[in-house]
């Protein structure tokens, strides 16, 4: 789209150029005809205003040409714009001078009224060409960073010029009252607009010098042309054509171009001495923005400090500087130097440490006072005569020290110190952000690892338990927010006998998860050995005694269900007693019995604490295994759910399916806690005994 517009502009520029040449030719031709008519005393047959009409057309078309040309050059900078004025001026002046030269060389020919008229028309064309190109460029400069008001003023100015151009046709009496009024308005507007020189401030030192040169030359061209116009020998011409200097439009244009060029020249000239200050301020602003951006760019602390060092050096015009970065104990862990070697920094540091004033300052108890800078206006170290020291504080901790050195005494003024402090504050904020980000990332990483540990632990718990022909088993487990150590598992010893176990590792967190994994390993390996419950616990205790730290233990209940003998053998290693529902009595029994947690006693004497109990089951009986997360689930009033509640739930839902009974118990416990997150793991396994589905055929 843009490309097409550009192309379109190109055509417009070309058309303007061709038409302007044509109208210039037409103007010249009409002048010739008028002269011929005057000479031969025969009416030329063309209206007297014809040449002026073409002059107006030429003016508009040339302006149109330069305007369209400049539209394309949207991105041109000031120097390039002024360069255009200079080049156009150079070409037109040279041609004009050559014409003059030729005229004086062939004076005879040049005095011919026809030839003289051609030369005059050529010059008029050149002058207008230069004037309008300058006008188009200056328009761009005036409207640099335009405001609405400025734009309005400019449009009014342009409108007035257009109006004045139209008046060329009416041959207003030069310097009459209305002429003066119009001219006065144009001059006032020119002077008002000439004050718009915002672009000057953005030029650097070199650019300012170039602008001065270019403006000076274009002023010379303008004055040359004005001089030429004043000195035109109209008496030599065959007729008296429209004098440009008797038309308000052209005087106005000259007034504008001259005043603007002159103003700009003077303003730049006066701005020259302060340019370095502006440049410095600009650099400071750039440095500041770099420091501010550093928190987004994820720079390292050292990069930020490096940036700070260079920003501060340029802000206070220091000759040398260094930054010490401290660790939390206050020791220097890293130094970055500017124009200073490691050795020099070391020496300077020593000298500072010996300075009594500084020592007093560093031992200030009040951290607020310490946060301010410290200046040694008379400091003698190598070629340096003054020192400025800034402590850097990040997260209320002394993070580092910035020392700036200068080779003159009393080299730092308050203005510099303020700017440097701004840099330091920004850098400290950047470092703080950087550290916070790191901390957050670390936390995230840690959380992620906990999540993984939790998932691994959950995968260690079987989704489905082994069962035999007599049992229907449902299980439930829910880990707390932290990682807990609940454990359950099953193992089929043979067709008729299966082992079921439930346990709880002491403590919480990752260590509990590890111990639980150990327990799983111990259970799976010992189960293979087809041990009695007693032997199993003794061996498990022995194995775990070597694995567990001295403050950890595991509680466990071990059940051996024999579907042929219809018995349950169990041993309890410190785990909360399982519940056994007897359908014949419609009551629940707590399976106590002597027991001791695994890992509590770490020698052979453990076997003395193991007690194995055997009981018979009938179809309809139930065995409920759980961890204390369920029985000790607490409501907001800190009351426990309790074993009795479990018992009544078992009795109430006895006729339901195994899974349903289990979920009723869990729902009941959760309802009791008012759906609060339990602060412990909850695990439960419910076994319902039923008629053997694979009825063995009676032996005949």
């Amino acid at each position, binding site marked *: 789209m843009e490309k097409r517009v550009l192309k379109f502009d190109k055509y417009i520029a070309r058309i303007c150029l061709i038409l302007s040449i044509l109208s210039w030719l037409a103007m010249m031709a009409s002048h010739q005809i008028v002269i011929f008519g005057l000479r031969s005393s025969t009416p030329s047959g063309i209206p007297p205003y014809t040449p002026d009409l073409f002059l107006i057309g030429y003016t508009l078309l040339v302006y149109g040409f330069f305007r369209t040309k400049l539209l394309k050059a949207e991105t041109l900078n000031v120097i390039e714009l002024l360069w255009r004025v200079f080049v156009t001026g150079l070409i037109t002046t040279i041609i004009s001078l050559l014409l003059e030269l030729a005229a004086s060389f062939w004076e005879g020919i040049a005095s011919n009224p026809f030839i003289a008229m051609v030369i005059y028309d050529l010059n008029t064309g050149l002058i207008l060409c230069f004037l309008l190109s300058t006008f188009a460029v200056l328009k761009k400069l005036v409207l640099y960073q335009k405001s609405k008001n400025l734009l309005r003023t400019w449009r009014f100015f342009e409108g007035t010029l257009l109006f004045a151009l139209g008046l060329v046709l009416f041959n207003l009496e030069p310097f009459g009252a209305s002429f003066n009024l119009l001219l006065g308005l144009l001059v006032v507007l020119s002077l008002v607009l000439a004050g718009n020189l915002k672009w000057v401030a953005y030029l650097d030192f070199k650019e300012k010098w170039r602008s001065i040169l270019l403006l000076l030359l274009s002023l010379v061209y303008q004055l040359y042309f004005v001089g030429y116009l004043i000195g035109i020998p109209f008496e030599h011409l065959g007729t008296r054509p429209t004098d440009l200097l008797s038309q308000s439009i052209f005087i106005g244009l000259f007034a504008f171009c001259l005043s603007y060029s002159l103003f700009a020249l003077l303003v730049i000239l006066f701005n020259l001495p302060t340019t370095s200050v502006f440049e410095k301020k600009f650099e400071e602003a750039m440095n500041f923005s770099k420091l501010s951006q550093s928190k987004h760019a994820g720079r390292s602390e050292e990069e930020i400090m490096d940036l700070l060092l260079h920003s501060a050096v340029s802000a206070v015009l220091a000759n040398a500087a260094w930054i010490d970065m401290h660790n939390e104990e206050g020791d220097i862990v890293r130094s970055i130097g500017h124009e200073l070697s490691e050795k020099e920094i070391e020496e300077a540091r020593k000298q500072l440490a010996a300075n009594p004033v500084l020592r007093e300052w560093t031992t200030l108890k009040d951290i607020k006072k310490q946060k301010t800078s410290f200046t040694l206006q008379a400091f003698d170290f190598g070629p340096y005569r003054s020192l400025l020291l800034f402590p850097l504080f990040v997260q209320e901790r002394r993070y580092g020290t910035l020392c700036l050195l200068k080779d003159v005494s009393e080299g730092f003024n308050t203005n510099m110190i303020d700017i440097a402090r701004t840099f330091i504050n920004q850098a400290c904020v950047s470092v703080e952000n950087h550290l916070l980000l790191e901390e957050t990332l670390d936390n995230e990483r840690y959380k992620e690892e906990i999540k993984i540990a939790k998932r691994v632990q959950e995968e260690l718990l079987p989704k489905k338990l082994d069962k035999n022909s007599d049992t229907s088993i449902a299980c439930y487990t829910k880990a707390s927010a932290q990682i807990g150590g609940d454990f359950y598992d099953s193992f089929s010893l043979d067709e008729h006998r299966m082992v079921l176990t439930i346990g*709880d*590792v*002491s*403590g*919480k*967190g990752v260590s509990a998860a590890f111990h639980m994994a150990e327990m799983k390993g111990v259970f799976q390996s010992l189960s293979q050995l087809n041990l009695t419950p007693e032997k199993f616990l003794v061996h498990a205790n022995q194995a775990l005694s070597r694995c567990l730290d*001295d*403050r*950890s*233990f595991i*509680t466990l209940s071990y059940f051996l269900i024999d579907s042929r003998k219809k018995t349950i053998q169990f041993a309890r*290693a*410190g*785990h*909360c*007693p399982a519940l056994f529902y007897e359908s014949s009595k419609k009551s629940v029994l707590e399976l106590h019995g*002597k*027991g*001791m*947690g695994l*890992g*509590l*006693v770490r020698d052979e004497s453990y076997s003395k*604490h193991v007690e194995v109990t055997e009981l018979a089951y009938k179809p309809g009986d139930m065995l409920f295994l759980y961890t204390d997360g369920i029985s000790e689930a607490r409501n907001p009033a800190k009351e*426990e759910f309790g074993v009795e509640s479990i018992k009544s739930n078992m009795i109430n839902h006895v006729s339901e399916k195994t899974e349903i009974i289990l979920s009723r118990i869990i729902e009941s416990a959760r309802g009791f806690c008012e759906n609060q997150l339990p602060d412990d793991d909850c695990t439960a396994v419910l076994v319902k005994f039923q008629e053997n589905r694979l009825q063995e055929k009676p032996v005949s």
Partner: protein
Amino acid sequence: MVDITDYTEDEILILEVKGEIDASSSLSLDQAIADALKKNYRNVLVDLSKLDYISSAGLGVFMSYIQEFKQKQIYFALFGLSEKVSNVFQILGLDQLIPVFPTLEQAKNQVHGV
């Protein structure tokens, strides 16, 4: 939270434990018992009458010191356990390893061999 204070009575160091012992407060219990060991008393009793709750981590702390008390031949016992806390000790079997008495009097009688 747990609050542990100690005092001596008849050459016996008595630790009074108030509040709840969970995973985090078990660290203060650990510290208190370690400090008690350093004081070189022949007898150390722990008053658990104002203990409302003890987690497995807290039980682990008591368990971890059994061996050390035995080695240093220091008599170590608990007394005044609430029914709930006592139940927790019994289920785990820890009451078989550490003597538990209903009252301070009974614990002291044991110490003095009455």
